[in-house]
């Protein structure tokens, strides 16, 4: 098999898995929420309600693809594409297992950060192009929220980089052979988790959508597959953040007995489950609380982590 064919098969495989997993996640999430809320969740279409995904897909595809006449049409159409593209691109650097992965970039971590911060354009532009007050408010919130949380998201990872001594994600995984970074980098782990949830706009940080005050926030005016793209984008985002957390803090594919791929998938799924548990249990903060939390708690914590890690690394190295 040529190298090119291998690369392409990698790309297609990962794309297919990510997409189908994102779709499956919509079912998994609802079932898990059901489990934690003493009910069933979707269980009537197909075995265990699995075909609910197909039903949803059919519904989304067959709905009227409506572009509001008052909207900024080009941007309106572009916005959902951006989010889907950027989150999928970020997947390129995720080291799934040895030999599985799209590219092995030296600056993989920076690429991930860059892509995830591009995603915010989708939300802001979508909210603005909708020309609707709820959408615009959602867009505003997204912009401020992403800006604030990205600041310490990057910083929180610097500890990991220092420990691993590389921006290459495969090197970072390899560096966790002995000890997963979630132990030495506990502060970095916590802050990255919080930032990751905020980046994925998941509850409790889903203020840009906040359906009980903003109708549906930035995607109020979206319907059919354009809404579907936002939807997929969100789930892909969840998978991405989970995968990154596994890579950066839980030793990626490393583990005994089971093949590396299985370890990666298992760890990722547990992290996703944790995200869903968050959604099931925590209320949404007020907007000012959200901002204060980022700037007054999380940012200082990250900086402290950076300083301490830096000092330890320096001391240990010297």
């Amino acid at each position, binding site marked *: 098999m040529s190298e090119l064919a291998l690369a392409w098969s990698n790309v297609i495989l990962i794309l297919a898995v990510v997409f189908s997993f994102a779709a499956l996640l919509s079912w998994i999430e609802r079932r898990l929420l*059901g*489990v*934690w*809320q*003493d*009910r*069933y969740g979707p269980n009537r279409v197909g075995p265990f309600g699995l075909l609910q995904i197909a039903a949803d897909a059919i519904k989304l595809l067959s709905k009227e693809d409506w572009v509001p006449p008052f909207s900024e049409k080009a941007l309106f159409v572009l916005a959902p594409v951006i989010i889907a593209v950027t989150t999928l691109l970020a997947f390129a650097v995720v080291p799934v297992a040895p030999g599985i992965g799209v590219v092995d970039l030296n600056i993989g971590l920076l690429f991930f950060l860059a892509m995830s911060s591009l995603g915010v354009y989708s939300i802001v532009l979508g909210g603005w192009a909708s020309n609707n007050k709820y959408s615009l408010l959602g867009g505003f919130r997204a912009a401020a929220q992403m800006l604030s949380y990205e600041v310490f998201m990057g910083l929180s990872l610097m500890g990991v980089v220092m420990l691993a001594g590389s921006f290459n994600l495969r090197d970072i995984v390899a560096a966790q052979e002995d000890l997963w970074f979630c132990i030495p980098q506990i502060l970095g782990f916590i802050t990255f988790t919080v930032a990751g949830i905020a980046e994925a706009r998941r509850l409790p940080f889903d203020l840009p959508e906040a359906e009980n005050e903003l109708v549906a926030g930035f995607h109020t005016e979206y319907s059919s597959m354009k809404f579907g793209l936002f939807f997929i984008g969100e789930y892909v985002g969840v998978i991405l953040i989970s995968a990154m957390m596994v890579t950066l803090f839980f030793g990626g594919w490393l583990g005994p007995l089971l093949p590396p791929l299985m370890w990666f998938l298992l760890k990722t799924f547990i992290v996703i489950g944790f995200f869903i*548990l*968050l959604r*099931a*249990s*925590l209320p949404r903060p007020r907007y000012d609380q959200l901002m204060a939390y980022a700037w007054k708690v999380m940012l200082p914590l990250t900086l402290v982590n950076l300083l301490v890690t830096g000092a330890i690394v320096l001391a240990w190295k010297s």
Partner: protein
Amino acid sequence: MWNSLKTMWTIFLHMFRRRVTIQYPDEKPVIPPRWRGRIILSRDPDGEERCVACYLCAAACPVDCIALQATEDEYGRRYPSFFRINFSRCIFCGYCEEACPTDAIQLTPDFEMGEYDRKNLVYEKEDLLIDGTGKYPGYNFYRVAGLAIKGKDKGDAQDEAPPVDLHRLLP
């Protein structure tokens, strides 16, 4: 933070609880008798229509989904010549039942009224009228009202004195 974690733990533990969901179409729920479901018109213990077409239910209805027309039989008994409830508008608030002075209109535990065609949700008197007294047995409005109807002349109702003799001259 600690609170949040505690909450998450509590929620997580719910994984091991019994589900409260009743698998409705396969498993029938127990509906209490005072459930506010499909509306019916009942009959009095004599088997006559209880509704006297007073229009109070229509007036009480917040979505104005009750329309009727009063009429009278040859003896002066009031009844509705038509009585229509548009269930596609009904919000099952039960105000009509509360307003009804004769216990005629009642909400029942039946809620399985789904239709594919909205117009099938328009119920006429034939669809509403049942053969029994419903939730309130025993009450018969015309037995306490002053109006004379067939078989009940003036003075025959509950707690009524015989009609005054206009030609009696005694003081």
